[in-house]
């Protein structure tokens, strides 16, 4: 194995071990799991939607929200704990490049988010499957065909969400490489996630004709600088089959996410290279 890759993997391994020991990770995992499990008992408040859709929306909403919080806060914390505790001094005095260090942090944090998603999605799948079996049994008696959920779609959704959180981690690392304090990185990182969720508004506005060159330039820059995080939210379509998702569309979303991920990691590495430890 390439020496650089090996060093990156060692950093990510220790980062992963550090992250999974954090109470914050355990707290959000328990909170997310509680939200998934409580969706069954709260389904009476389904506002007229299908039961499975309500359960899926509720559970995936928790996974999506707590995953975002974890990606922002945990990534900034993992980065600043190395800087503030001066463990970065020990590590970066070794033949380890700044880019390898940052990549190691990225992969460690991304692996933790992968565990978070797999656990919660697995739990969500179990809840959906159990309720589906009950609905099928009831439908057989009444003769109605119930909505079903797709295990393959659930897997695709986990991958899409993982990629989305990977983009968030890359953005937070780029911000952390520049920021002087943990709080600044968390606040700006959170704003970046909100901006990413609302990016489609700028995209819509950009497509409408305007007389102002400055406004058009602002929208052009915004729509390219900020990734559209909303495009990864395909829970209904993928898991419950509420709309057909073409394979090409999934691949396009995947490439878009990877492009942003690589771009923000590169930016972070360039900023971090000049940082004084």
């Amino acid at each position, binding site marked *: 194995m390439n020496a650089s890759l090996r*060093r990156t993997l*060692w*950093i990510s391994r220790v980062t992963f*071990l550090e992250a999974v*020991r954090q109470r914050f990770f355990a707290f959000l995992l328990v909170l997310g799991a509680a939200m998934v499990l409580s969706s069954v008992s709260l389904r009476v408040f389904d506002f007229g939607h299908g039961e499975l859709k309500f359960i899926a929306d509720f559970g995936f909403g928790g996974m999506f929200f707590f995953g975002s919080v974890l990606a922002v806060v945990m990534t900034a914390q993992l980065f600043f704990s190395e800087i503030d505790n001066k463990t970065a*001094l*020990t590590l970066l*005095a*070794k*033949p380890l490049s700044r880019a390898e260090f940052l990549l190691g942090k990225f992969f460690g944090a991304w692996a933790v988010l992968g565990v978070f998603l797999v656990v919660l999605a697995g739990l969500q799948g179990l809840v959906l499957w159990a309720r589906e079996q009950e609905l099928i049994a009831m439908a057989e008696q009444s003769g109605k065909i119930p909505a079903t959920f797709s295990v393959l779609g659930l897997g695709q959704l986990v991958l899409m969400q993982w990629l989305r959180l990977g983009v968030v981690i890359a953005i937070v690392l780029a911000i952390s490489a520049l920021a002087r304090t943990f709080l600044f990185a968390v606040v700006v990182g959170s704003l970046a996630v909100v901006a990413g969720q609302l990016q489609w508004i700028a995209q819509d506005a950009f497509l409408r004709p305007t007389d102002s060159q400055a406004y058009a330039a602002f929208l052009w820059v915004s729509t390219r600088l900020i990734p559209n995080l909303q495009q990864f939210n395909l829970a209904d379509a993928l898991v419950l089959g509420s709309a057909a998702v073409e394979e090409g569309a999934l691949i396009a979303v995947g490439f878009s996410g990877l492009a942003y991920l690589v771009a923000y990691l590169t930016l972070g590495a360039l900023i971090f290279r000049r940082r004084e430890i």
Partner: protein
Amino acid sequence: MSAAISVRHLTKDFRIGLRGLKLRAVDDLSLEIPRGQVFGLLGPNGCGKSTTLKIVLGLVSATAGEISILGESYATSAARRRTGFLPEAPYFHKFLTGRELVRYCAQLSGVAAGDLDAAVEDALGLAAMSEAAARPIGTYSKGMLQRIGFAQAVVHDPELVILDEPTAGVDPVGSAAIGRMIDAMRTKGKTVVLCSHLLGQVEQICDRVAIMDRGKLVLEGAVEDVLARRDRHVLTVEAMTPAARAAAEAALEAHGAKLTSVTHPRRSLEDLFRELVTGSRDA
């Protein structure tokens, strides 16, 4: 052979605050640290010692000046592969055991997989940490933290070892143990650069010293040369009586010399402490 560290006209300015006020931490420093010696870099807090070491290691950028390590350009992977570093007040991941930390650092330093086990055990043995290596670092005392820090710094058998305040906060017994480790590195032909406020220990261990103040080099040379007062002499006399003293004074005056003080030799408090608590270990 090139010097272990060569610094020429090094200057470092830090920008402070929104207005970018300039603080000069290192001011036109030129220094040659020869190979195979223990070199003490001394000075009061804030004199620029640690900044100089961080620049040499590529952790902080220089404003101006030229630096080379073991003949190679500084801040490169090649130079860092041949260098070990123990930072001031080291902090390591508490959940790792001592052995896991040293292994982790060995892997980052490029120790070959086949040599890994032997290198880790050698470094742990040198730092006298073999027995405690299976314990999590969170359970270590201050002295043990410094010793495990020393082990991670030397695990890849570097030619140059830089130790920033290795004895800070360590009791005299632990401090003496670190002194022995430094001595062992010298015996192996390594170059050791040591920043310390324990001047007594520096005097005992170092071959050469440099003293910095306000970012500038104020003195550099071999310890013997910089400490010796060539115009004064010390005679140690046993069983001296008043008559013998008077005779000695008269004899000295007859040759134009003058006895200026007569005192009893003292041992240092550190020596006394170490003598009394010999064998105690910090665990």
